[in-house]
């Protein structure tokens, strides 16, 4: 019995509290196993800061939020969720949970692809990003919706916003100066490309689609015309 549990729920101490890794299996069962495990050692877990590695499970807000509340009932503070699934990561980010911890992740057999040609990887987000949401992604990010003030996008590649961009955006976050930021209404709080930072002047009124690129060592916003955008 104990042996079996060890396979599905692994717990180890890390610098920032505890790291709990959940294995494969049916989510509800896994969750029950975890809660049972915690209840058996209630005094050990009480008040703990926990990061949860959910592996390949694809979780929606209702599932992740539910687990967080259950943990909270046990006096456990869930602060981070690690996952191989971008969907789950996004859910975690929306719930205000971290998706990265400083300790290296445990080895996994089925890693998400890490080697890819430049520009191949991209994340499509089909909703408005509201204040407090932070999207971190190694490839390009496409948002169909607005990016409100207080929201942040950090992308290894370019960022394209089919809507109003008013939050903070960092394109080419790993130093790629060829990255660009495109928006139907480009009015960010702050805009970064690679190592350059620009604070655009506040603008009122109608605006046309624009793109921000680095030209001659400066972030520049230019009208997004077919011949420019098409390249």
């Amino acid at each position: 019995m104990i042996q079996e549990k060890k396979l599905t729920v692994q717990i180890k101490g890390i610098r920032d509290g505890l790291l709990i890794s959940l294995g494969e299996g049916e989510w509800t069962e896994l969750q029950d196993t975890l809660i049972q495990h915690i209840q058996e050692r209630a005094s050990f877990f009480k008040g703990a800061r926990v990061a949860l590695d959910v592996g390949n499970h694809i979780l929606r807000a209702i599932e992740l939020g539910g687990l967080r509340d259950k943990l909270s009932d046990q006096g456990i503070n869930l602060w981070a969720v690690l996952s191989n699934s971008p969907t789950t990561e996004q859910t975690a980010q929306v719930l205000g949970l971290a998706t990265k911890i400083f300790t290296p992740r445990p080895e996994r057999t089925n890693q998400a692809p890490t080697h890819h040609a430049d520009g191949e990887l991209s994340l499509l987000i089909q909703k408005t990003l509201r204040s407090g949401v932070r999207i971190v992604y190694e490839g390009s990010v496409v948002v169909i919706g607005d990016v409100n003030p207080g929201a942040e996008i950090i992308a290894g590649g370019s960022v394209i916003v089919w809507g109003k961009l008013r939050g903070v955006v960092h394109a080419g976050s790993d130093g790629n100066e060829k990255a660009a930021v495109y928006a139907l209404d480009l009015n960010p709080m702050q805009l970064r490309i690679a190592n350059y930072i620009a604070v655009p002047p506040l603008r009122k009124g109608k605006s046309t689609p624009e793109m921000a690129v680095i030209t001659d060592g400066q972030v520049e916003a230019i009208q997004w015309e077919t011949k420019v955008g098409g390249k």
Partner: protein
Amino acid sequence: MSATVLTISSGKGGVGKTTTTANLAVALALNGQKVVCIDGDIGLRNLDVVMGLENRIVFDVVDVVEGRCRLRQAMIRDKRVSDLYLIPAAQTRDKSAISPSDMVRLCDDLRSEFDWVIIDCPAGIERGFRNALAPADVVVVVTNPEVSAVRDADRIIGLVDAEEKGPARLIINRLNPAMVKRGDMLTPDDVLELLAIELIGIVPEDENVIMSTNRGQPVVFDGKSRAGLAYQNIARRLRGEKVPFMDLEEKDGFFHRISRFFKSGGD
């Protein structure tokens, strides 16, 4: 009877959540609805003061959850209007005294006896907010026409969506038509452009609100107050009535434009 659980939240403090809760509760009760309010702000309770029921508290919500009293014993009946009750918060504990599942159970126990369970959510996005959100059927976000309040409202709306309790509905509180006219205050259009959710009421700034709050007599009881009228209209909209947005000040014509906006913009 099965109650609608309505959570009033805002993110930022001081925008008028508690005042809104008290007034909507009274307005609904005046309309013949059975209403119970729960103060979710454990440790910093206020709703009892605003409703003028502070001196009648014996048991509170934490006593109910921890089994020190029956639910009925913690419900304070408001004598000014029929079928309005308050379950006060504990003042000597903190938010961790109850959990989201406690709140869900508590509200489920109340559902069969009431038309409305209204929860006054504390400021912030931590435990207290999650306690208040867990049982909600409808979430109303209160904001002021100020950049910081709108920013926090945006965050709350996102969190409400993430918990699949959305879309939240919006009340713009403390709008000063004269300042809007001078261009010194965000207009309802500015607020809605950013938040992009359904507006169910605009409450004008009104000195009567502060006076009535201090007296523990919600402003809705005052038939002449403009803010009181606005709350009554919101209560009717919550019940599904189509109530046009009122011309709060005929003379400057500003609210004419607002009401036009909503006729064209609202679904």
